[in-house]
């Protein structure tokens, strides 16, 4: 049982895709969570349902939507390629987008609950002490919601690591280019390569245990 150079590359790509996807999901999720926790607006409930959709839709359906949007003949695909030179289909960038969208609701949901749990008095106190809204957010709301946000972020990262269906639809399974660990495992099993499947499965398990252990450490009530 030995890891080849190709396996290490696969691991690196998996971590790169999952990290970037988590980052995007985090930025978008926290911003939208704050907006939802703070403001009442028309269509709020509908938008909430749409944003939660990636959590309940089959990943393949989600991948199909992404193809319809970003494919060669998709609604946004040609425009993205012409203006920004970005191609999402069969590229690792496409894998990032797919994983980010699948992981997004996990950040959004937990960040929103965390912001709603911040006592209004705390934010009001900051205002009476002269804080602008941006100061209230970064000095009070965000730190008080941090624990919930980090918890959501770790779940999002784990979800992005294991992403299979949507990524397969959008980015394909190209060894060395878009193949992530979960796809490599699938491929090894299909090919009857039990040794490789074992190795990769153990590798992915080790990474996940590490993440869980780290999150347990950072999220324990008192350090």
């Amino acid at each position, binding site marked *: 049982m030995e890891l080849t150079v190709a396996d290490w590359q696969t691991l690196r790509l998996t971590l790169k895709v999952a990290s970037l996807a988590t980052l995007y999901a985090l930025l978008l999720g926290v911003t939208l969570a704050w907006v939802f926790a703070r403001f009442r607006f028309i269509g709020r409930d509908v938008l909430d349902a749409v944003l939660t959709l990636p959590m309940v839709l089959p990943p393949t359906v989600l991948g199909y939507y992404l193809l319809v949007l970003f494919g060669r003949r998709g609604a946004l695909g040609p425009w993205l390629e012409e203006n920004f030179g970005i191609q999402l289909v069969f590229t690792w960038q496409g894998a990032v987008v797919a994983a980010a969208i699948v992981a997004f609701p996990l950040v959004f949901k937990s960040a929103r609950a965390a912001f709603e749990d911040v006592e209004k008095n705390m934010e009001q106190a900051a*205002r*009476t*002490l*002269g804080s602008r809204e941006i100061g209230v957010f*970064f*000095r009070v709301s965000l730190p*008080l919601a941090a624990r919930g946000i980090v918890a959501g972020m770790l779940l999002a990262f784990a979800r992005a690591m294991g992403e299979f269906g949507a990524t397969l639809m959008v980015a394909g399974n190209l060894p060395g280019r878009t193949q992530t660990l979960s796809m490599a495992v699938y491929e090894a099993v299909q090919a009857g390569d039990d040794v490789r499947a074992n190795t990769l499965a153990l590798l992915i398990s080790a990474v996940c245990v590490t993440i869980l252990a780290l999150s347990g450490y950072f999220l324990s009530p008192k350090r």
Partner: protein
Amino acid sequence: MQLSVDIELTLKTRQRRKAREFSLHARFDSAEDRVVFFGPSGSGKSVTLQAIAGLIQPTRGHIRLGGRTLFDSAAGISLPARARRIGYVFQDYALFPHLTVFENAGYALRQWPRPLGHETRERILHMLDVFGVAALANNLPSELSGGQRQRVALARALLHEPEVILLDEPFSAMDFLLRDKMREELAAIQARFNVPIVLITHDLKDVRAFADTLVVYQYGTIAKVLPCREMCRHEGETQAWASIFEACSGVFNKAT
């Protein structure tokens, strides 16, 4: 301190899926430095205080404080809470749980995101020293007793150099012995810093200790405004306080 309030507002709240409405019409003037709001729960004292601080926007009327107009619906003026220079001591003190006592006290002085300057740090420490909590500077609020929390909340409000400090039932969470002690402390602090205060209470002892002007609330309106200090001067203390307390208990009798 010249404080002139004449506001109307309606709050819509939801309790067990039933929409409830509370309307308040509060109107009073005071030139005294120590004003007390007294009245039953839900009569609008706290809402008035929040309106003065800019945490709630009235639908109509005006709020003027020492020559400044904080709110005037006719002129379209409504200063945001951060620009009002009003200290607010919340009922539960609302200390930031993730910041130390020192960081809490210095909140208003920090030009975020820059760190605190050396002189400012000295100033904060000095203020904590005045309140006898300098030794706790690096503790979190969760590690403090009720009295210590209130001292930190007051220090935090005072360091913002407010024109008035509003206190929402400051002693209600304390046992009787501590209550008497903190009452004396607050009176001493008020005199030392010469800062005007407006205080909400249900306790006649607080009325006796702080009311230069007493505003008596009832059902979302103001039943009486009593110039206690004036009354004491004219009628003598014993006579004046007897009639003031009678007026206070009157609102409870009518309420039931």
